C-alpha cells in the first residue's frame, strides 16, 4: 500500500469549460517557436542563426551558465529568425517545419543497464535535460550539483487542468521508462492523486519498483510538486532536489530511451468558459496556437488566452506558441469591458469567492458532489492594499511555512529571514492560490519569483 498523505488546506476552484475527453485533429501550419522564458532561470545563448537547417532534437539554444544544457528543437526545419526584445533579450527562436520530419537518432538504450551519469549525459545530449526543474529557486536545473532526490508529480489539480491519466493512455511504457531513468540518478518519488484505477495501472507496469509512490489526498495545490516535496523530504539550505511538476516531461524522457528520438508531443486541454467546445489536442511543444484557436471561441468581446492554467499560466495571444510546460490553453473573458455597479456590497451570486460574505459556500455545499461551475474573468476586482486579513494564505498553502511572514520578508529584502522562513522550499506556483484568495490583491507569485531571483544571485 502506498503512502497516503491527507491534506486539508487548499482550494478547488470549479470553473466552466472543462475539456471533454475527445481529441481534436489539427492540421498544423508548420510554424514553431521555442521560448527561452518557458525555462525559468535560464539565460539563453542561441546556437543557431536564421536560415540554419535543424532536425528535431538539435539544439536551438543552450543555458549560458551551463552550456552542456541544450534545448532541443521540437521539429526539423529551417530557423526563420531569432526574435529579440529590449536589450537584445531572446524572446523566441522561430522554426519553419519541413513537410517531412527528420529526427536526430540518439539510439535506443536499455535504461535498466544504465547508471545515473549515463542517463544525465543522454538527457543533456538530446536537449531535454533543461525540462527538469529544481528546488531551491524553482528554476530549470543544471548538472553541476547532484540532487538529493527527484520528485515527480503526476497529479494535475489546478482548475480545468489536463488530465494526465488521459494523456498517458497508451504511453504507459514510456512513463515507466522515464521514471526508471530518473531513479538511476537519485531516489525518485512519484506523487499521485486518489484515482484508484490510475494507481493500479501505474503499479501494474512496475512504477512502484522504480519510484516511491505517494498518494496525495486533498484539494489543489496537492498536485504542486513543491507541496509534495515539503511533505516528503523538505529542502534544507545547501540541498538540491530535482522536480518535475509537469509529468509529460517523464514521457519525453521515456520516449528518448525507448525510441532514441526527441519527441516533444504532448496532450493539451483546450478549455475555459469562452471555448465553444472544450476538448483535447495533441501538439508539439512550441507549436503555434492560431490553428487551434481559430473559430474556437467567440471573438466578439475581449478574451484572455492563457498559455497554461488560470492560476500559473501566462497570458498569450492568438499568435502565440505552446509553452514548454503548458498542458492547457485556457480562454476566459478578459473582463475589462465589464461595468459592475457597487460590487462591494451586492450579493454577486455569479462570482466565486472563498469568503462567506459571498454565497459560493451555499451554492457549493460540501455534501453536494455536483459543483456549481463559475465563469471567472481576469479582473483583479479590488485595489492593492497592505496585508490586512490574517490567515488567508495559510488556508490554501498546505506547507509547513508561514506564508505571510515569508512574503513580508521578501518584500523587506531580508535574506536571512527568508532563509529561516523556508524560501528554499517554495516556488511561485505554491503561492498561486494564496494570490487568488488574497483580499489585499498582492502579486504574490511575482514577489516570490523576484525574491528567489535575488537570492539566487546572492548565493551564486
Amino acid at each position, binding site marked *: 500500500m502506498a503512502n497516503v498523505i491527507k491534506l486539508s488546506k487548499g482550494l478547488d476552484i470549479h470553473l466552466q469549460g472543462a475539456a471533454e475527453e475527445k481529441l481534436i485533429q489539427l492540421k498544423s501550419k508548420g510554424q514553431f517557436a521555442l521560448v527561452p522564458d518557458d525555462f525559468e532561470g535560464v539565460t539563453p545563448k542561441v546556437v543557431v542563426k536564421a536560415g540554419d537547417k535543424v532536425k528535431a532534437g538539435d539544439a536551438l539554444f543552450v543555458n549560458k551558465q551551463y552550456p552542456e544544457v541544450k534545448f532541443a528543437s521540437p521539429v526539423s526545419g529551417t530557423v526563420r529568425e531569432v526574435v529579440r526584445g529590449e536589450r537584445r533579450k531572446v524572446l523566441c527562436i522561430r522554426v519553419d517545419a519541413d513537410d517531412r520530419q527528420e529526427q536526430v537518432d540518439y539510439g535506443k538504450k536499455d535504461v535498466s543497464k544504465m547508471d545515473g551519469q549515463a542517463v544525465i549525459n543522454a538527457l543533456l545530449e538530446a536537449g531535454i535535460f533543461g525540462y527538469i526543474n529544481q528546488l531551491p529557486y524553482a528554476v530549470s536545473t543544471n548538472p553541476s550539483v547532484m540532487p538529493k532526490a527527484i520528485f515527480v508529480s503526476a497529479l494535475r489539480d489546478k482548475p480545468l487542468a489536463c488530465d494526465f491519466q488521459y494523456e498517458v493512455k497508451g504511453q504507459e511504457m514510456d512513463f515507466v521508462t522515464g521514471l526508471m531513468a530518473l531513479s538511476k540518478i537519485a531516489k525518485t518519488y512519484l506523487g499521485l492523486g486518489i484515482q484508484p484505477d490510475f494507481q493500479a495501472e501505474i503499479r501494474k507496469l512496475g512504477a512502484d519498483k522504480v519510484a516511491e509512490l505517494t498518494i496525495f489526498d486533498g484539494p489543489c495545490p496537492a498536485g504542486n510538486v513543491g507541496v509534495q516535496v515539503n511533505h516528503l523530504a523538505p529542502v534544507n539550505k545547501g540541498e538540491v532536489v530535482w522536480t518535475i511538476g509537469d509529468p509529460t516531461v517523464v514521457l519525453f524522457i521515456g520516449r528518448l530511451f525507448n525510441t532514441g528520438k526527441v519527441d516533444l508531443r504532448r496532450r493539451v486541454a483546450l478549455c475555459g468558459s469562452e471555448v465553444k467546445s472544450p476538448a483535447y489536442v495533441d501538439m508539439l511543444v512550441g507549436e503555434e496556437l492560431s490553428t487551434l484557436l481559430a473559430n474556437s471561441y467567440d471573438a466578439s468581446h475581449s478574451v484572455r488566452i492563457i498559455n497554461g492554467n488560470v492560476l500559473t499560466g501566462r497570458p498569450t495571444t492568438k499568435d502565440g506558441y505552446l509553452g514548454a510546460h503548458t498542458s492547457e490553453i485556457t480562454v476566459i473573458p478578459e473582463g*475589462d469591458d465589464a461595468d459592475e455597479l457597487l460590487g462591494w*456590497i451586492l450579493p454577486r451570486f455569479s462570482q466565486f469567492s472563498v469568503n462567506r460574505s459571498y454565497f459560493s459556500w451555499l451554492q457549493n455545499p460540501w455534501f453536494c458532489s455536483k459543483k456549481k461551475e463559475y465563469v471567472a474573468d481576469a479582473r*483583479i476586482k479590488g485595489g492593492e492594499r497592505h496585508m490586512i486579513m490574517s490567515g488567508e494564505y495559510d488556508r490554501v498553502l498546505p506547507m509547513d511555512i508561514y506564508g505571510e511572514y515569508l512574503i513580508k520578508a521578501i518584500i523587506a529584502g531580508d535574506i536571512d529571514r527568508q532563509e529561516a522562513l523556508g524560501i528554499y522550499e517554495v516556488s511561485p506556483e505554491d503561492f498561486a492560490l494564496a*494570490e487568488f484568495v488574497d483580499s489585499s490583491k498582492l502579486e504574490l507569485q*511575482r514577489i516570490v519569483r523576484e525574491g528567489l531571483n535575488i537570492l539566487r544571485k546572492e548565493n551564486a
Partner: protein
Amino acid sequence: MKAIRNLFDKMRPSFEENGKLHAFRSVFDGFETFALVPNDTSKSGVNIHDAIDSKRIMSMVVIALMPAMLFGMYNIGYQNYLYAGTLAEASFLEIFCYGFLAVLPKILVSYIVGLGIEFAWAQWKGEEIQEGYLVSGIIIPLIVPIGCPLWMLALACAFSVIFCKEIFGGTGMNIFNPAIAARMFLFFAYPSKMTGDTVWVAQDSIFGLGNTLPDGFTAATPLGQVAQGTSPDLSVMEMAIGLIPGSIGETSVIAIAIGACLLLVTGIASWRTMCSVFVGGILMSVVFKQTGMTELCWCQQMVMGGFAFGAVFMATDPVTSCRTTTGQYIYGFIIGAMAIIIRVMNAGYPEGMMLAIFFGNMIAPTIDHFVVERNISKRLKRGGAK
C-alpha cells in the same frame, strides 16, 4: 451602468495630472472604485481573482456594527426619557429619533475628520484611499459616552488617524487599533468626560425631542457602581439586553451578538481570537470569584461594560492582533484575562477592556515572533540533522 461609467470617464481628465481638479484625485478615485468595480485586469501571476476585496470586508464589519449602533441610538433616547420620568408617554419613534439625533453628530464628526485626513493623506502620498477608517470611524463614536463633546471627539479621531495609523504607513501597518487609540486619548486627556456618573445619559432636548435633565443629574454605569464599592442593581438579563447607561454602542450584548454572528459566519473575524477572549475573561472571573476578590460572577463580568464589544469588534482586528493561529489563541486569552484583572484589581479603572486590548496590541508581534520562531528552529534542526 454604462451611463455611470461614461460619467466617470467624462470627469476623469480634470482629475488627472495638469487637470483643474488634480488636488482631488484621490477623492475621485475613491468614489469611482466605490461606485464601479475597477476594470483592471491582472498583469502578472494568477489570471483570475477571488471576488473579495478590502472594501467588502470593511463593509461587512460596518454592517455587523449596525445592530449595536441602532440599539445604542434607541438606548440613548430611552435613558433620557427614563431619567426624565416621561418614558411612559414617549413613543418608540420619538425615543429612537431623539437617540438618532443625539448620536448622529458624533458619527458625522468622526467620519468627516477621520476620512478627511485619510483623503488628504492619500492625495499627498499619491496612493489609493484605504478603507480601514470606515470601520474605525463608526467604532469610535460607539465607544464613547454620549456626554463626550464633539470637539474632543474630533481631536481624538485626528490623533488616532495621524499618530496611530498614517505615520506607521496606513491600514495594515498600524500597531495599535485606531479606535482603541482614540479612546485612550480621550480617556487620559479628558477623563472627566469619559468616566464618572454625569456623562452616560444625554441631558438636553434636541429639536423639541427628549427632555432637558436638571443640573447635577447623575447616573452611573454598572461598572461605575462596582468601582464605587456597591453592587450593581441590575440583573444579568437587564445588562445583556442593554437598556442601561453606558458608552453608546456597547450596552447591549444581544445586539453585539448579532454582529458577532455575521463576523463569524463570514469568517471575517477570527473565531479563535474572539472565543479565547471570552475563555480568558470567564476563567479569570471564576478565579477572582473563588478567591473572594470580587462578588461578581463570570456571567455578570461578561455582560458588563465594553467586554463583549471589545472582544467582538476590537480584539479581532486582523491588523493589530496576532496573525498566526496559535498566536490568536494566546492573544485573545491574554486580553480577556487582562480585562478582568484590571477591573477587579485596579479600582482606578472601572473598565479594563480598553487597556487590555491596548496591551494585547502591544504584545501581539511578540507572541507571533515566538510562534514563527518555533517554525524557524524546527527548520534549522531539520537542516542540521541530515
